[in-house]
């Protein structure tokens, strides 16, 4: 399944392009979010199983479930990672608002005033 990895790489490159090339700081934060989401996509795709069912036990025997369900471990770790991404985004937005109040601009080319 080559296409899934190509898709995650494309999303990661879009995120890096947005982080490096755009000059607005809010857009940089959005690029960080897109890049993190590509990593999440990759981690979820590792737990793939052909004709899988979600890892939640319903009424039925456990052996059939163990043969069909997808891997629950990457999903739990991605859940942790989403919380970390949310914290990082909130803190970055706070810092952006602080910078805007000090320098009256969001453009990184004009943020060349050294005195605090």
């Amino acid at each position, binding site marked *: 399944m080559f296409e899934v990895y190509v898709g995650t790489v494309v999303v990661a490159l879009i995120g890096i392009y947005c982080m490096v090339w755009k000059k607005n700081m809010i857009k940089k934060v959005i690029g960080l979010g897109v890049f993190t989401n590509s990593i999440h996509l990759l981690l979820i795709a590792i737990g793939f199983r052909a004709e899988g069912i979600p*890892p939640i036990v319903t009424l039925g025997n456990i052996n059939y479930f163990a043969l069909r*369900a997808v891997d*629950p*471990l990457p999903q739990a770790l991605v859940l942790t990672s989403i919380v970390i991404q949310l914290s990082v985004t909130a803190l970055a937005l706070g810092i952006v608002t602080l910078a805007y109040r000090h320098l009256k601009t969001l453009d990184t080319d004009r943020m060349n005033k050294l005195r605090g």
Partner: protein
Amino acid sequence: MKSVLFVLCLLVLGGIFLYVFLSPVFGAWEGKHVANYYLENALEDTGSANLVSSIVWDFRGFDTLGEETVLFTAALGVFTIVMFGMKRRK
């Protein structure tokens, strides 16, 4: 010129990413002992039907405690930044 160089760098970076991302085999199920253990025994060990929830709060509970610490610290950090800005503005 500058943008062409940037796109070239981006493509090289994409090649590196693809090389790294291709190392796990997609959809292979032979070597996954941890996943098989969770699928077979987690229901009896914890009694929770939702296996993701049982992993998050039981098998890897200390990871989740650290994650909650990060969330608490982020809320505290945003509070500090906003209050600092308000005090400076006056």
